[in-house]
């Protein structure tokens, strides 16, 4: 059977280490011409590292790579191109200020100047062949995520790649866009190209691939025929033991008022509306999920709520107790320290953990005291209390670290997130905002995070969960808010809504929004009578 098709790629005993971390250990992989191979593994299992060695970004410590049966040494992306290997990275490798055409032709040999007419024509030809839709003269920074991905794919095809590697290509796409991408992939497969798609989403593996190769903690586990695999069997190979794939959603927890957001509008420094009349409520004792394609205003929403992003209009009313009276305090225009001074306890786990939530070069103690170092009086900092807290958190959350004085940057992704989440929960917040809390974490750490969120919900905390994985959002949320281009395109009940419906809402502000508007009117009336 191996002989019916030639092997496009063969990797044998490939090993790669970073410092003391072994990212890949004696990995073997075979890719045939004219097939789609899914490379499956948890976050941190070494999928991307392995593929980066094929595309010339990293050089293996040892092991052999064969392309079309010939042993090769890929020392740079240029070598990879020469061998017909093209990789579409998860974080797009495109220059923002250049046009699509300029990005596509980047680094290619040729005359002193570029024949732009001919170039545009060639790009259109490729687009037509596989069914893309792209304007060659559009600048990258004016493009949507899916357009950027299209440019990336054309870039690779333009270079005549016969072996395509796609790193988590669906993470940023809506279900509909994903389907479209899969159609393109199948068209390329029929064109006898060899394709590797890196993913950790099982249903995608089952729907698009011919075979699945599985990595676990840097080790190669096996390659199986997709037809013979099930979600359960793949999970067991990926995680190493059988796990329940469902996420808990505790029901029947009493709800209480916490946050009312009305017509929140934010404009960025370029004058673009990032949030447009966003209105919603968040209640204590529930998890409000927030879905949307990347860059739909999620970041701005989190930061506007926490006083980090300037608000143009609207109100953020926080239900707070002041001297025994219940009042709704408007947080618009308040800076984070003013919010803290008001006695409002809000916790925020930002998307950028080491760039915003934590200080990478400082130790755990200094990171634990980040938000409350001002508590004691006098000019000196108190490092004793946070040290005790740190030690307790290490115990409670089973954080793996050499000690409280190790710089945070030396911790693994899962442990970094535990430190951050642990610190935020430590201040017993009324409102907890988490952005992409499980991104980059392995399955065990992800479930620890989901459990912690559910515990908070049970305690009566209002949790706002910004997510990208619709499966997770649908399972964990009590209500699900869908953002589209900075607008709320609807707030739905995840128990009764399908993924496809949400996918549509992510790209259209349609009927759901009208319903939403109607709900709002009702809410406002209620609010008026309440006062």
């Amino acid at each position: 059977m191996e002989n019916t098709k030639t092997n496009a790629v063969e990797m044998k005993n490939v090993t790669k280490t970073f410092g003391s971390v072994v990212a890949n250990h004696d990995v073997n992989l075979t890719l045939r011409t004219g097939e789609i191979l899914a490379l499956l593994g948890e976050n941190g299992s070494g999928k991307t590292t392995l593929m980066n060695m094929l595309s010339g970004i990293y050089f293996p410590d040892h092991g052999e790579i064969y392309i079309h049966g010939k042993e090769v040494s890929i020392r740079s992306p240029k070598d990879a191109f020469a061998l017909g290997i093209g990789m579409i990275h998860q974080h797009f490798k495109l220059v923002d200020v250049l046009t699509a055409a300029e990005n596509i032709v980047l680094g290619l040999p040729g005359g002193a100047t570029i024949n732009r007419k001919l170039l545009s024509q060639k790009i259109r030809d490729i687009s037509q062949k596989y069914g893309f839709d792209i304007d060659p003269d559009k600048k990258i920074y004016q493009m949507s995520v899916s357009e950027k991905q299209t440019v990336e794919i054309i870039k690779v095809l333009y270079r005549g790649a016969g072996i395509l590697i796609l790193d988590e290509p669906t993470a940023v796409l809506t279900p509909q866009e994903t389907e479209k991408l899969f159609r393109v992939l199948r068209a390329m497969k029929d064109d006898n190209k060899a394709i590797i798609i890196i993913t950790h989403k099982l249903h995608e593996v089952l729907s698009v691939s011919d075979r699945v190769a599985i990595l676990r903690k840097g080790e190669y586990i096996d390659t199986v025929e997709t037809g013979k695999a099930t979600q359960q069997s793949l999970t067991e190979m990926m995680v190493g033991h059988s796990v329940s794939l469902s996420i808990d959603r505790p029901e029947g927890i009493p709800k209480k008022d916490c946050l009312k957001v009305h017509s929140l509008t934010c404009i960025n420094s370029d004058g673009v509306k990032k949030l447009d009349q966003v209105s919603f409520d968040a209640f204590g004792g529930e998890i409000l999920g927030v879905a949307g394609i990347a860059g739909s205003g999620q970041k701005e929403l989190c930061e506007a709520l926490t006083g980090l992003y300037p608000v143009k209009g609207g109100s953020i009313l926080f239900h707070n107790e002041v001297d025994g009276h219940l009042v709704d305090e408007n947080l618009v225009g308040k800076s984070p320290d003013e919010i803290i001074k008001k006695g409002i306890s809000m916790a925020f786990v930002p998307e950028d953990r080491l760039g915003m939530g934590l200080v990478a070069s400082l130790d755990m103690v200094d990171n634990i005291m980040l938000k409350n170092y001002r508590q004691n009086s006098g000019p000196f900092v108190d490092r004793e209390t946070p040290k005790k807290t740190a030690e307790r958190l290490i115990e409670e959350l089973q954080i793996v670290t050499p000690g409280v004085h190790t710089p945070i940057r030396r911790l693994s992704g899962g442990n970094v997130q535990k430190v951050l989440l642990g610190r935020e929960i430590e201040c017993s917040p009324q409102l907890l905002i988490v952005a992409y809390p499980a991104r980059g974490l392995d399955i065990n750490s992800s479930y620890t995070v989901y459990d912690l969120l559910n515990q908070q919900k049970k305690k009566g905390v209002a949790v706002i969960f910004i997510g990208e994985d619709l499966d997770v959002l649908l399972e964990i949320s009590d209500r699900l808010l869908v953002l589209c281009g900075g607008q709320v395109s609807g707030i739905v009940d995840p128990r009764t809504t399908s993924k496809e419906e949400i996918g549509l809402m992510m790209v259209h502000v349609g009927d759901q929004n009208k319903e939403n508007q109607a709900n709002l009117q009702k809410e406002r009336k209620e609010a008026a009578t309440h006062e």
Partner: protein
Amino acid sequence: MSKEIREHQEPFVRMVKRASIEPKKAWLIRGIALLGAIITGGLLILTLGHNPFEVYASMVQGAFGKKIAIQETVKLTIPLLITGIGISLAFKMRFWNIGAEGQILAGAIAASSIAIYFDHLPHAIVLILMGLAAFIAGGIYGMIPAFFKAKWNTNETLFTLMMNYIALQFVIFLEHQASWQDSRSTFPKVRMFTDTARLPKVFGVHIGWIIALIIVVAAFIYLTKTKHGYEISVVGESANTARYAGMNVRRILVRTMFLSAALAGLVGFLQVSGSDGTLTETTAGGVGFTAITVAWLGHMNPFAMVVVSLFIAMLERGSNSIQTSHNIPASAADLLTGLILFFMLGCEFFINYKLIFRGSRKEEANG
């Protein structure tokens, strides 16, 4: 395509980030780099037709040979050390203050105005006023670019640098003012201060050295034990995190830059009152730039900066003496300082990364 496929061969040398390094090994690397700089300097001396050993010996001799030489070296150390500490405060926040030269002059101008107009007051009062004026003037002079940086993210490197030239022109302007000159001379020069405006001496050097040592300890405590110090380290690492933590980044930036520049301003006072006895165009004399070297080589650690500033002062003092003994221009000090810093900057690479040569895979797998 087949032509492009190369022999199976790994690159000749690759670099890999080290997980960690023992301090001993790190210091060894730095020591080798220093030696490398000295040897390179020696080769330069050799090409000029001098014996490098002789020249270096005469430099050390010139800096530490006699009691008076030591006093002179210490006198050069004081401004370097204090300015270096000031600069390190700003650098820790990634605020590239290269305007210490101008801030020293601003302090010097303020101190000199007290010396020129209020020298009838009691000695102690004049000195305290001079010090305060210099501290505040320097601080404000440094706060201006910090304000714009905080508000509009204006490039502080160029802003602070342009302020140097403005301060320098102002000093020249003052030198041309009759009221600042000696009444017996028409030469454009600020008159010598009276003794009321001069700093007293301890062990033959003006008391600036005691002030410097106090500042070293104070700066260490400030940076490592206080809330302000903590804020500086957070802001320096990530302004985003600082904002997230509820810190007022703008205020911290402006405040820290005030302190940074105020220390430079204080140096201006020590120079005019302790060292020179008057205000001249060379009051700052490149200290503001050399102090950057001090801060960087001392890894922003006040105690390490004591050693570094003493070393660089030795180079400068020594260069002056080889000018007379060997007729080698005193600018050699700048040249050598630059060389040493080049080597030190380069050697950090070998502390952070290790090189893997072709064919040494086995070792790496074990190490």
